[in-house]
């Protein structure tokens, strides 16, 4: 079989080289290339696109979505989906903001609480999915309703303002880049390492890829699913803090369609909706790519009315390119 020769060739190459090649040939490589292409095309048409401020803004505005997309990737890799994330971000941001305006409350508490409540909501979802075996799409559909309605019930939609200046984490900068960007980078790297190098992270792929096999090799899918949904809750919690601390006021309603943006990021990032494959690095790159598309289209004066259609087409094209790339790879394997 050709397999033997391929493997022999691979074995002779040094490890770093192999890794490099895998990086370029993989989904991450394809996304990076698309991003580069976009930057070149838009940058040539309108050099202001390349201004440091604009690049920094694109990254800043990708951050909270990317962080949530990390959690979503884990959920999708485990073979599930969570469409309540948008509502969760709304709820957690409101909780965080409400706490910050309580007199005498230390600021760190209002940052921390969403990171605790998020996993708690995730645990409820996870319990329903893992132990009571209700499909995740149903649970999260229900959860979305509950959170959305509950939020309005609780707040009446009153905006929160007058947060103390030190609360506004996301408005800080460090070495010329906004703080959320560091969160995005750090969490992407940490999550990538966790999912690759820890038993608990690796188990997510196992459960998503072959549940029966996972069970037989001593992995408890239930525990893994609980963990995945709680991890997702944590990421959403962090995302909501970035979301809440960005502004002078907090809109205490659920931003509509946010869950679709997050799911799209994860899926375009190469996370297979069938579970078992994908990386968070891809998801983060996809988030940045999608944001850059949204931003770049304004720079090159795409007709405002057709903007959405152009974006939709670009998403479709990205997905198709990836699909063809995968198919070519599969064909190569078959020889």
């Amino acid at each position, binding site marked *: 079989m050709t397999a033997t020769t391929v493997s022999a060739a691979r074995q002779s190459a040094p490890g770093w080289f192999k890794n490099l090649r895998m990086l370029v040939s993989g989904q991450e490589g394809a996304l990076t290339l698309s991003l580069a292409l976009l930057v070149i095309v838009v940058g040539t048409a*309108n050099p*202001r*696109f390349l*201004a440091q*401020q*604009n690049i920094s*803004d694109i990254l800043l*505005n990708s951050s*909270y979505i990317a962080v949530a997309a990390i959690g979503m990737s884990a959920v999708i890799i485990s073979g599930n989906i969570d469409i309540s994330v948008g509502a969760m971000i709304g709820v957690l941001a409101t909780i965080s903001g409400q706490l910050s305006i309580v007199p005498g409350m230390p600021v760190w508490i209002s940052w921390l609480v969403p990171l605790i409540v998020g996993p708690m909501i995730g645990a409820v979802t996870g319990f329903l999915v893992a132990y009571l075996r209700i499909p995740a799409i149903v649970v999260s559909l229900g959860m979305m309703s509950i959170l*959305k*309605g509950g*939020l*309005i019930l609780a*707040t*009446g*939609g*009153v*905006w929160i*303002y*007058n947060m103390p200046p030190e609360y506004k984490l996301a*408005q800080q900068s460090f070495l010329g880049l906004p703080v959320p960007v560091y969160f995005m980078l750090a969490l992407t790297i940490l999550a990538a390492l966790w999912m690759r190098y820890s038993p608990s992270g690796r188990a997510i792929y196992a459960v998503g890829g072959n549940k029966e096999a996972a069970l037989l090799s001593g992995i408890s899918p239930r525990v893994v699913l609980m963990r995945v949904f709680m991890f997702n809750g944590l990421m959403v919690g962090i995302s909501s803090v970035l*979301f809440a601390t*960005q*502004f*002078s*006021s907090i*809109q*205490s*309603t*659920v*931003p*509509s*369609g*946010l869950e679709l943006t997050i799911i799209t990021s994860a899926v375009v990032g190469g996370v297979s909706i069938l579970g078992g494959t994908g990386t968070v690095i891809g998801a983060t790159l996809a988030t940045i790519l999608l*944001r850059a598309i*949204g*931003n770049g289209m*304004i*720079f090159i*004066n795409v007709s*405002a*009315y057709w*903007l959405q259609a152009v974006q939709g087409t670009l998403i479709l094209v990205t997905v198709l390119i990836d699909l063809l790339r995968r198919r070519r790879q599969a064909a190569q394997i078959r020889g």
Partner: protein
Amino acid sequence: MSKKVFSAILMVALALSVAFVPAVAQDEVRWVGADDLPVSPLECPEGAPGAAMAEEPMEEPEAAALEYNGGQPVGAPDLAGQEIVLVDVPKLIGIGYFNATSLGMQQAAEELGNVKVTTDGPTQGDIVQQVAFIEQYITQGVNGILFAANDPVGISPVLRRALESGIHVVGYDANSEPDAREWFVNQAEFNGIAKAKIDSMVAEIGPEGSFAIVTSSFTAPNQSRWISEMWAYAQKCYPDLKWLETVESAEDQNLAFQQTQTLLNKYGPDMDGVFGMSSVAFPGAADAVAQAGLCSPDDAAADVAAPDEESAVAIVGLSTPNQMRPFVENGCVESVVLWNPVDLGYAAVYVMRAVVDGTLTPESTEVEAGRLGKLQVVNGSEILLGPPFVYTQDNIADFDF
């Protein structure tokens, strides 16, 4: 084979229909985000470049002369002086603006003592859901419905059904077709708001400045109406204003923030001002300008990084005081245009009471509205709240909604 032919036909059909549609309406100039309804720009202020040209007498809408054109409920019980139960179905619940109108309604109900009013509606500004809500309340059997329409045409059938069931219907904030309700409390006419906004913008950036618009969505009726009127008014009075572009931001503060940042990056110093068209878009846009350090230098804003006058970006828009308070207080935003929504809700309940009591009839020319005094009937079946209100640093502390 037949499958291929069939699919080919389908493709061609789709292409044809999509291609045919926008064929018209291209010749008539219309700013991005504006609707296609007729406009009636108000007169230019003194000293505006266009003021001289507008010498011939304007065709003022003959408001008072117009016949009453509202609808009437069928067989509504006579409840004059008795307790009535009202439901208020705003465009959506959970935003500051409609919280404020709702507050005003409660105040009026308390003053009157014989009105019970609850606010309920969809969580998104969606006509479909709003219609469903109204259907439910017709079935539940309230005495009166107060509404702010997500779509003037879309809401009309269900309101007509309410009238047929003997329920009184009064609109506020966003109108329906006239015959689908009895009265509409008009907070400020579109052309009035448009004038106030353009005038405020010109005051900051001058009659030859350039600006972009951040709207919530192109399909939001009020906002597209305003953009239309603003365009018409600016064409008439400030023809040298440079209109850059309109972007959408959904009802999402974060998106408004992002889109404004993109505009700032795209135009740099070539953009002098930004309109925030909704109570969500405005604070988002203001935040983007503030965080970019581009607030106009202001005497009161010692803590704000003040760039030179050249690169500063003015922000003008409609919003509620609470949402804009931080920006007005630090001087980043000089003025916020809005009527007082508390008063709007307040007036709507008084109008409804007057209709039920029989003191407001098609023949009336004015109506008594508690602390607001007498309000004028205009345009046949509308009641005018008054001119728009401008919040500034001096008075914003007095309002909490």
